[in-house]
């Protein structure tokens, strides 16, 4: 069973220490919810976990191996959803998603996988619409469909519910639950309530990790 963990992480941005001495550990099927007030470092921690940002000190490891050693392998086992939706305005919705899938699946059934993923987020009917015609929430759904279209064990989601309506948030929660049942891990930063099963909460105010049962986050 794989384990993703960080030890004594220090993050410095703009010459200011955002957090220091932060530890976490996540097992297959686990979920970690990051909470904290604005500017407490949730986005920074997620970028750090993905490898986009390098920690000023401390180590991140996957099954005991440092992730910085082989960034491509680490990139291959995670999906990151940030503030930008990476939707190309001139490509159709399905082309957008299947391109990302083809980078991981080797291009094989990328197209079918993309359509299935779009259906899961309720925009199957928009498959052939160019990206430029989408509203804020529709773009976000395309971005989320991307992570479904090619499997990866670790999901890093930075405020994924932004701009989504109720119905889609529920769909996302169900998707996350399925992902975890299949042994996937997920790290989420959020200000709003999300319904998840047994998860850990990492409060960036004091770097404490709390284990939560079947309650609501935050």
């Amino acid at each position: 069973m794989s384990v993703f963990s960080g030890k004594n992480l220090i993050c410095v941005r703009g010459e200011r220490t955002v957090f220091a001495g932060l530890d976490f550990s996540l097992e297959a099927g686990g979920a970690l919810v990051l909470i904290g007030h604005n500017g407490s470092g949730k986005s920074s921690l997620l970028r750090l976990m993905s490898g986009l940002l390098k920690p000023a000190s401390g180590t991140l490891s996957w099954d005991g191996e440092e992730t910085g050693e082989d960034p491509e392998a680490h990139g291959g086992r995670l999906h990151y959803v940030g503030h930008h939706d990476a939707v190309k305005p001139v490509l159709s919705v399905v082309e957008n998603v299947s391109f990302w899938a083809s980078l991981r699946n080797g291009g094989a059934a990328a197209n079918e996988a993309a359509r299935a993923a779009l259906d899961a987020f309720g925009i199957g009917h928009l498959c052939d619409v160019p990206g430029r015609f989408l509203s804020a929430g529709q773009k976000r759904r395309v971005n989320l469909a991307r992570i479904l279209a090619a499997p990866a064990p670790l999901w890093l989601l930075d405020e994924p519910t932004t701009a989504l309506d109720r119905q889609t948030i529920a769909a996302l929660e169900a998707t996350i639950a399925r992902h975890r049942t299949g042994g996937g891990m997920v790290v989420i930063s959020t200000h709003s309530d999300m319904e998840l099963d047994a998860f850990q909460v990492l409060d960036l105010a004091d770097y404490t990790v709390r284990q939560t049962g079947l309650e609501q986050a935050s």
Partner: protein
Amino acid sequence: MSGFMSILKRDLHLAIRQGMDNMMVVMFFVLAVVLFPFGVGPEPNILARIAAGVIWVAALLASMLSLERLFQTDYEDGSLELLTLSPIALEVIVLAKITAHWLTTGLPLIVAAPLLAVLLNMNTEGFPMLILALVLGTPSLSLIGAVGAALILGSRRGGVLLALLILPLYIPVLIFGVSAVDAVIGGFESKAQLLILSAFLMGALPLCPWAAAAGVRQAIE
């Protein structure tokens, strides 16, 4: 390799969907060349004398301008982050993007060059060499320009800064490109210049994607 092809295909796809855009690089090239007769006056012999130089300078500027956006849109819409996080080596990704860029802008430029040479009254003997020199030189321009394009990501006023970074590196290509043409027109050999241009290309091919990838990595921190 399949990653390389995926990205190459997608970038060509984007370029074709955006239709006019590559045409525009060529049009800028044409316009910049056409400005010169306005600027220096229409005397045919003077124009003929500076023709090769003007065409090369315009090609440099056109290549530079079009490179500005090589990573820009991907950077702004978050695609570049995701590309970096994909299991394909960033160097390969960068090389695929450069290849797509050259195919869609460098090639048309080479096609347009002889027409402009006519317009500037260039000696027809120089035409084949002009094309050959451009074929060897423009890929180097794309490769070098990609490094600049990666370095300026995230900075404001991108265009001008990029110009500043890569124009000095363009100068050797310019010098040997022009002198290859001038040599032929003057009745000399130009093998040496062609060899040097090829050497540039061979040097840039492994070095530039690596440097550009490093630039991209620091930009998305």
